[in-house]
């Protein structure tokens, strides 16, 4: 079974986790000054990369915490996991 490293609990079986979508999607600071297209982009448009992808994951059947993970979408390898608020470790941008 795939093991995922929870930043709070350590290596845990993948069954305990839920995927939470793309990470580092920042809400526009001033929504009323944002154009309708930018807002639609923020709401609906997500990356679909082949390769490294920064994602939110939740250890729902463990500590219950959200964290971020860098996963390779072609090999399903978790390159690293890190706590929310920390920068993406490979320096790549989310968008």
């Amino acid at each position, binding site marked *: 079974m795939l093991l995922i490293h929870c930043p*709070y609990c350590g290596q845990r079986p993948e069954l305990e986790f839920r995927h939470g979508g793309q990470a580092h999607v920042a809400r526009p600071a001033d929504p009323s000054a944002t154009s309708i297209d930018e807002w639609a982009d923020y709401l609906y448009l997500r990356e679909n990369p082949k390769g490294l992808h920064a994602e939110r994951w939740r250890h729902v*059947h*463990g*500590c219950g915490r959200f964290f971020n993970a860098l996963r390779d979408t072609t090999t399903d390898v978790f390159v690293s996991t890190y706590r929310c608020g920390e920068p993406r470790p490979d320096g790549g941008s989310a968008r």
Partner: protein
Amino acid sequence: MINLASAGLVAAPESRRWVLRGHAVAMAAAGAAFGSPLPTRAGEVAQAASSIADTARAALWLGPDEVWFITPVEDGAALEGALRTALAAVPHALVDISHRQVGLLLQGTDPAWLLNAVCPLDLSLAAFPVNCCTRTLFNKAEIVLWRTGPAAFRLETGRSFSGYVVGLLAEIAREQAA
């Protein structure tokens, strides 16, 4: 109803349980009321003497800001009173979950083998030592697992899941016996 004994289970003594959510300030205040500093490391269990002779209250680390208290029902009023008083001035959430949960004591020759039939956690003594606890999955049911001895576990599961957990454990115990 499935016989508990056929699954190597004993019902835990009637208990009161609370879940405490809060930051370090709330945890420190609650620790003073509890009688021992609350656990801060993942999977740690802290125990303290309860107000009833020869019994203990336990505090289980289940998340970075989440601790469960489990204590015999006779100690419940004393512990809850102490916690509510100590936490009165601190932002926190202390919720009574006594009746949501069912406690089961799993003993026998190799209880880790029984659990590992449907629970993928590493339950070796090196990885999951005595007085280690965690929330995890028992096949489809969420459980809280607390190792109380080298060959003894306490399972806490939702009341509505208990029939499923006990029935499945009984099936696995039949396989172990075969």
